[in-house]
């Protein structure tokens, strides 16, 4: 209840006491008796939780939170594109044996397993080799550029080793060159992480695509006509492969060359037209 003092009688001013009457001195709020005599006057006591409120409970940083990181890692491994998800372990084993013995994969050759001393003739399809060979699939972030402009630079470095490409792009004044250089450097980092030979790493494929959700603007033209100004956004994707692939392809080319028939420079086929015994003109 809000108490009022309407009925209080007037008392002469005690001027000498005036300085001692503070702002909140005579008021129900300050005297803590809101409900008059119905309630007991209590002094608020600090509870234990309030006393210890200074202690800060700090959570571990996300980096050090093992439970969180384990969960994230599990998710990441599920999403990762890995060869062991798509190829049988035996094939992987034989492929690795072949590579260990030859330095790269030689298809249709015999390998011996030192553990079991068994011999296998390995013959894999092109697709299986593609899966088994080390490769890195790179994806860029969103880039503010058009596909047309990106492709000019992409064509320049396709097939280069990554290090050579980076060196070339570093001195190329195009905007795309800078973006591509950064992009390839991430590839180099990833190769380092996987323990691949960075010097042999080359750009097997490099392409660009629209990243979607382009911002569009009105292009006001003369004579009441309009156009659309588009702000293109793209991404880059690349497949980097190691010198294992380079060597294998060279070997395969050599094999194919060796197996090819010798080239005849004279036509050894029957004449395929009518041979007349007289001049026609």
């Amino acid at each position, binding site marked *: *209840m*809000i108490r*009022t*003092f*309407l009925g*209080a009688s*007037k*008392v*002469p*001013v*005690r*001027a000498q*006491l*005036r300085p001692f*009457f503070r*702002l*909140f*001195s*005579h*008021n*129900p*709020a*300050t005297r803590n008796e809101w409900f008059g005599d119905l309630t007991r006057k209590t002094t608020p006591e600090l509870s234990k939780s309030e006393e210890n409120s200074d202690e800060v409970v700090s959570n571990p*940083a*996300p*980096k050090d939170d093992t439970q969180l*990181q384990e969960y*994230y*890692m599990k*998710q*990441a491994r599920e999403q*990762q*594109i*890995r*060869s062991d*998800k*798509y*190829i*049988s372990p035996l094939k992987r084993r034989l492929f690795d044996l072949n590579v260990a013995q030859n330095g790269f994969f030689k298809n249709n050759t015999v390998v011996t397993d030192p553990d079991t001393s068994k011999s296998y003739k390995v013959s894999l399809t092109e*697709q299986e080799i*593609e*899966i088994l060979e*080390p*490769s*890195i*699939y790179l*994806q*860029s*972030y*969103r880039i503010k550029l058009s596909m047309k402009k990106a492709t000019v630079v992409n064509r320049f470095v396709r097939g280069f080793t990554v290090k050579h490409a980076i060196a070339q792009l570093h001195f190329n004044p195009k905007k795309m060159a800078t973006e591509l250089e950064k992009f390839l450097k991430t590839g180099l980092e*990833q190769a380092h*992480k*996987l323990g691949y030979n960075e010097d042999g790493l080359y750009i*097997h*494929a490099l392409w660009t695509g629209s*990243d*979607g*959700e382009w911002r569009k603007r009105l292009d006001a033209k003369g004579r009441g006509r309009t156009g659309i100004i588009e702000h293109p*956004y793209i*991404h880059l994707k690349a497949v980097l492969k190691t010198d294992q692939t380079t060597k294998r392809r060279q070997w395969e080319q050599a094999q194919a060359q060796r197996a090819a028939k010798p080239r005849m420079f004279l036509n050894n086929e029957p004449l395929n037209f009518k041979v007349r015994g007289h001049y026609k003109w």
Partner: protein
Amino acid sequence: MKFLSLLVSTASATGRRFIHHRENFRRYPKVNINDVELEKPRFGFRKVREPLISQSVKETLFPNTEIKRRYLKAGKPVPIKYRYINDKIGRRNYEKYQEEVALGLPHFRVGEKKIYFPKGRICLLRPNAKHTPYQAKFLVPRNFNKMDLRDYLWHVYGLRALNVTVQLLHAKFQRGPDDHARYRGPQYKKMTIDMEEPFIWPELPQSVVENANKTFDNQLMALEQKTATGSDKLKPSDAFDGLYNKPVLVDQFIPRRARKPVEARDDVNAEKEMVMLHLGL
């Protein structure tokens, strides 16, 4: 010729500035540049009145009596506004106020409507540059009047509002993303009171300010990551010490057509079947 010189003389006499001939230097005005005062002061040339008698009385709360006396002494008619008993009333009110402060009584006529659980939201605001420490500003409900606030502050906090001024303010214009026009939110009311004792808002602890800034930045970064489009979804974010950063595992390049799990692949199953047939399982 005579006629011409006459013309020239008249032109110089009228002081025309834009003349189309070379003027004779003898006719130039004989003025020293140091004597010319550009930008003359614009004050001091008007008639200055004698100061009013009423202005001579200073540093007193109740000047009317003294002013009146001085006018009478000078033999001048007392201005109408000094003829009344304002001083007497003022002094009486002042004494009454002092008495009430000494007794801890409200210094005003308390409202008669009893409100047991006031639901109005009263916010103490931070002062602007124009406010003194003896002033406090509140955001109040729009249906509040000066007396309401005075009563409220007295009964809830025991605070004496010596003077109350009201500011009824219009809200800012708002403009939604799909609106064709702007519109205003509801008006809001602020009241400024004068107090007996000064109050200065405490400075915010530096840690609180820093924490708030940090949280704001974190939330902004988190929002950026959440609303990212296209390939920017892959971008790592520094929000909350990298809370949302998932570990980046290197992907291998496996064409989409080859991305079938081992168990679902026809060739693997065919091999299995063949072996099982051969072994008679």
